[in-house]
């Protein structure tokens, strides 16, 4: 029996439109395959960034976040988003305003000046959450059967990121955040295997304003992560957040440069956003998923060459 079509307002954030538009492209393609409608949010701004904005002034962070949520409330739908940072920010703004009457009053006083009102009628969902809970691993598995034959056989190093999991009370993962497996289950429908590596849940180093203020420190985290991933024998890194993606992709080049005396060899591990991998498993083309880079363009992603992975998949088909 056909269910009511799922509909969400797609919140883009900053990194995706400015740096990695192919993540949006891949996500839209995958969602279309499952008949989920994604509406544009006119006038959406920066979420605002949870580390920087909330670190400076909580009230400002609440008001700016609430404004973004009201756009979806007016459209009468929940928000779907692709970035851990935006997720952490908007989810916690939503939760705070639903539970703290004083803050709600303060926010609505400010929003009234621009003719808006936060009502608390929209939920905030990460695309991993939507695909895992609403669509379901089984459904996606069934579809991938008809997508790509034979299935992909890559060895993946999954990077969950931080805000996807914690603080655990407001996340939809049943408090199981010390050794979660939901992202692995979701991505393994592609036929690939998720490899366990040392300190899998270590932060990429980008968030919390660290990349902005202490770039070398953030790259040190990335270096450690890349070393562990490289030691595990994984072939591709899979992310669920464009900022982590940036840190592990562009960051990889930066690490190779900054730590060239410390590391034993230069890192060359391709990085994919998980919907790009799912798209491949569902039989979409690499052009459609933004996996091919025009040789004329300089300074645009993907930074770490994807050729090795594409070759492997090309061999598989």
């Amino acid at each position: 029996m056909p269910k009511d079509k799922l509909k969400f307002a797609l919140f883009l954030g900053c990194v995706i439109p400015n740096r990695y538009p192919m993540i949006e492209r891949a996500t839209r393609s995958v969602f279309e395959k499952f008949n989920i409608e994604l509406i544009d949010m006119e006038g959406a701004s920066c979420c605002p960034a949870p580390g920087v904005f909330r670190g400076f002034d909580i009230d400002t962070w609440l008001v700016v976040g609430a404004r973004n949520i009201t756009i979806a409330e007016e459209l009468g739908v929940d928000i779907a988003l692709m970035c851990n940072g935006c997720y952490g920010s908007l989810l916690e703004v939503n939760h705070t305003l639903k539970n703290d009457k004083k803050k709600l009053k303060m926010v609505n006083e400010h929003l009234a000046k621009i003719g808006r009102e936060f009502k608390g009628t929209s939920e905030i969902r990460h695309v991993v959450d939507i695909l895992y809970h609403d669509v379901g691993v089984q459904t996606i598995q069934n579809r991938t059967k008809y997508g790509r034959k034979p299935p992909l056989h890559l060895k993946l190093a999954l990077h969950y990121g931080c805000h996807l999991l914690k603080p655990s009370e407001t996340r939809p993962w049943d408090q199981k955040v010390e050794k979660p497996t939901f992202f692995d289950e979701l991505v393994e429908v592609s036929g690939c295997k998720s490899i366990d590596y040392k300190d899998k849940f270590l932060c990429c180093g980008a968030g919390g304003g660290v990349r902005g203020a202490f770039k070398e420190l953030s790259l040190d985290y990335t270096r450690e992560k890349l070393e562990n991933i490289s030691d595990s024998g994984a072939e591709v890194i899979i992310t669920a957040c464009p900022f982590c993606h940036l840190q592990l992709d562009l960051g990889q080049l930066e690490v190779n440069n900054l730590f060239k005396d410390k590391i034993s060899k230069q890192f060359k591990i391709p990085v994919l956003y998980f919907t790009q991998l799912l798209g491949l498993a569902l039989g979409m083309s690499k052009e459609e998923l933004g996996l091919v880079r025009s040789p004329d363009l300089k300074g645009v992603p993907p930074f770490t060459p994807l050729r090795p992975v594409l070759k492997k998949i090309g061999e598989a088909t």
Partner: protein
Amino acid sequence: MVETEIKLTGRETPKIGVYVCWCGINIGGVVDVPKLCEYSMTLPNVVLASEYKFMCSDIGQNMIMEDIREGKINRVVVASCSPRMHEQTFRRACSDAGLNQFLFEQANIREHCTWVSMNDVPGATKIAQDHIRMAVAKVSVLQPLEVTTVDVEPSCLVVGAGIAGINAALDLGNSGYKVYLVEKNPTVGGHMAQLDKTFPTMDCSSCITTPKMSEVSRNQNIELMTYSEVVSLDGYVGNFQAKIKKKPHYIDQDLCTGCGQCAEVCPVECANEFDLGMKPRKAAYISFPQAVPGQYTIDMDHCIKCGICEEECPTKAIKYNDKPEYVDVKVGTIILATGWDPYDATRMEQYGFGRYPNVIMALQMERLLSSFGPTGGKVKRPSDLKEPESIVFIQCVGSREFTGKGRKYCSRVCCMYATKQARSYKEKHPHARIYIFYIDIRAFGKGYEEFYHDAGMNYGINFIRGRVSELYENENHDLIVRAEDTLLQRQIELKVDMVILSIGLEPQSDIDDIARIFNVTATKTEDGFLMEAHPKLRPVDTLTDGIFVAGTVQGPKDIPDTVAQAKAAASSAATLMAKGQVEIEPYFAKVLDFKCAGCKSCISLCAYKAITFNEYERVAEISEILCKGCGTCVAACPSKAIVQNHFGDAQILPMIKSAIPKELKARGSEN
């Protein structure tokens, strides 16, 4: 001492004496006590108002008694702590002075007033005045009543035959009382039978438990019912009726000699709960060699009914068509000693219990250390049966946990049992490296601190203050443990052969069912254990008269404290049974037959079946013995034909009417 009983018909003009207690500074430090006395004098029927620092003391009580003896008052109101604290005290004072003890009312101006509004003096004063006014209104219409005495059956039901239940049963049995000892497992002994050695004396646990186990099975006054559960309870203190279900053993317990043939030939293997799944047992089994009783049982969940044991049994004891047997017993007192369950360590995902084979929990370590355990007393790690050369103990797993994954309380025994297990292992393997990661070491009991000191100084056990953040294993199933040494302020990463989780003690999973059957409130907070009547002064009583608690069912504790509580519970039960009689408060309800319309609405409402319908007179009748005084029928009767002693409409409505101060009443309203 009752002098001349003052005869009151309840129709004299009430002469009320109000006594306001300072309770030190608890009341006096917040409200103006003398002013409250002045206020009391303005209330109707109040003839005197006094105050004293501690009304519950001898001097305070004497004040009341003298005023009664001099005939100044015939009703008493004490404005002080909660009636649940001292109602009995003051009632006794009244009756000693010759006044019927039910002409007393206590106004709670401490727990419900000064203690909850410490900084709001005008607010607290208003509430104190209101409570006093309400108590005065109620006491004006109270009737003199007599307590009912009922006989106490000289027998006791002890639920649970661990070390607590066994000790309580033995004490009572040896005092000459009949004891029904009910245990849900096929053997007695509880968790203590699973332990190897006990701290701090390093006594062998079996050596001290097994003599008691066999004593309890041989005592003439103790009827031991193992593999049984209490399914329902009726009655009240002194007269409980319990229904006990004896689960089917599928082996005739009278014919079984304990030879073990059935187990030898049984083809089915399943996990042995006694060894926490580390050793198999057969479907026909006995929990451990020294089990009492020594008869075998068949676990029907796993039995395939192949019939081999039936053929082999020399006494033809196997009965596949065994059925549960229900027994009714009548007892005067009950002791609940049902024990604890270990915390489920899989909930702490970062410690890998259930995922990594060489991470085990403390009770499993006890079985490994035990000479009749799965490895015959040699501790071997599960993955390759190698004897570990390095072990990490992680303390406070599931205890002192504020994240919701465990319990907030400290389980009291884990610091000591980890030290004990570490010491036991070191005695056999002096070169092993053992690390205990702790938050605090709680070595509070007799000989405990010396034991811990010895373990560190002479046995070379490393105590490191810091929590383990996570651990993971390598291809060899060794464990890499990551922790912080907070005293040296550095991070540690250790590779060890085995990790032991010091799990906390939790209430049993069926504790809510026990609380419901026995009508004892299970605390609903994180604690989850059965609640004692008063944490300091009544540690083994429950709020239900005649039912006592002993051991870990009331909270985590070590063996000395458990045995002490068991003896205390036995003593309390014996006191009740020795007296032979118990007084019951006469709060029961009565039907005024001239008002009863015979509608029968009340009959189905009574949970105690105390109301019957008199077909001849066509009115309802209430049995005083069965009525518990809940008042449900009083509230429900459409004709208001049912009245209740002490809590009737005649008493409560005046309280409500007087509760609202005049200035708040509706304009023009007279009542």
